[in-house]
């Protein structure tokens, strides 16, 4: 048998016609498959949505845990650094609270501090933000200088000169924060420029009164802070001109001043 003969023989095997039902079956199969895939896709969407929600929750928890961990580490490191740093030789410390006043006169304690005065500047030793443990931890980390390592606060030469000049000007209020020493153990806060000479009564200009606070005589001096605000400090010559009270007032539409915030000394403790 040659190839042509084989082909002829093979051609005799014909395939039966396609059953007429096949097209209908395929069509029905198409509908069923599409319906199934739609349900499957919907299920997948539900699963995807669930997975996304779970992932978001997990991320949120991770962030909180990480933040807590970082704060704990910062606190631990700050504590250990404090323990090895030389003790601050402050002759006395003053516990104070910082208060903010609402329009209706109600008050809220924002911060409690322990500080003393050095060369006319209030030096902060520690602080607490009531009801805000995370804020307290961050503030203490900042004060300890740990966060300065990461944030690298830098004063431009121009700004540094302005600060220096402001501190020297007896009529100027200096309101600043930042590292007072290279180690950043001490954070300076605010005060009038030129304050520090207790022999001259702490203030030569702007004296608005005298008052005894916590058994310490004080001299009250007032400075304008721009056109709309004014600050008053009650400074005690016996405490190196430490301000036992401070008020910040804002000019109201009628021209009167409204108390916005302030500091009040609670206790003075002398070193033994």
């Amino acid at each position, binding site marked *: 048998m040659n190839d042509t003969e084989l082909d002829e023989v093979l051609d005799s095997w014909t395939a039966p016609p396609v059953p007429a039902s*096949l097209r209908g079956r395929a069509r029905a199969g198409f509908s069923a498959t599409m319906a199934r895939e739609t349900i499957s896709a919907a299920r997948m969407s539900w699963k995807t949505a669930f997975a996304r929600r779970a992932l978001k929750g997990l991320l949120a928890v991770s962030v909180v845990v990480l933040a807590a961990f970082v704060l704990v580490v910062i606190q631990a490191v700050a504590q250990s650094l404090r323990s090895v740093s030389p003790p601050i030789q402050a002759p006395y410390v003053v516990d104070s609270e910082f208060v903010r006043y609402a329009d209706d006169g109600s008050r809220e304690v924002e911060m409690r501090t322990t500080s003393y005065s050095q060369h006319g500047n209030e030096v902060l030793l520690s602080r607490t933000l009531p009801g805000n443990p995370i804020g307290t931890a961050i503030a203490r980390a900042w004060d300890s200088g740990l966060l300065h390592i990461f944030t690298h606060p830098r004063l431009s030469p121009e700004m540094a000169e302005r600060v220096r000049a402001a501190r020297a000007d007896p009529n100027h209020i200096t309101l600043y924060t930042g590292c007072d020493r290279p180690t950043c153990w001490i954070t300076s806060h605010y005060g009038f420029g030129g304050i520090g000479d207790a022999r001259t009564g702490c203030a030569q200009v702007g004296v608005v009164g005298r008052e005894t606070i916590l058994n310490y005589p004080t001299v009250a001096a007032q400075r304008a802070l721009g056109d709309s605000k004014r600050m008053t400090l009650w400074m005690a010559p016996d405490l190196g001109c430490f301000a036992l009270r401070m008020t910040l007032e804002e000019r109201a539409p009628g021209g009167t001043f409204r108390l916005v915030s302030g500091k009040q000394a609670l206790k003075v403790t002398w070193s033994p």
Partner: protein
Amino acid sequence: MDLVEAACKGREAAFLELFDEHHLPLFRFAYRLTGSVADAEDIVQECFLELLRPACAYDPALTPIRTYLYGVVRNQSLKRLRKSDVADRNGSGATHDRSPESEILRTEMEDVVGRAVMGLPATQREVLILAHYEHMPLAEIARVMDLELAAVKSRLQRARAGLKETLAAYAPGLERKR
């Protein structure tokens, strides 16, 4: 948008157009591989529905749709044949269903040739059916079967040699003499 893509997006018209274009040769191929109309019907239907599934491996950039469909039919047919072989060994009866009508219509020659082709080893049978009955180029057969071209040629030669021997008695000249 091509027909497969449109069908996958739920357009029935595209699916039916695809079906109408390809189902006939696929049915013949499936029938000749399995020897069963019912199996061929199932296989062809399944082959087209396979395209709609998300897990479908069809990539128009790599394979023409015709080659892909033949490949699916081939795989489905082999799967069924393997199951049938197991069933045969278990004595469950005939492998190939043949309706009374088809038996009546089947000529003796058809029957003999069909049995001879079905009697070939599966690897040779596939090549012979695609080459002879579907007139598929050898290169495309190689793609459908995932073989080297030389292997396809070799299998085809062996299949034809075997059939020449089996069907020698039915050569046109001899038949006329009978």
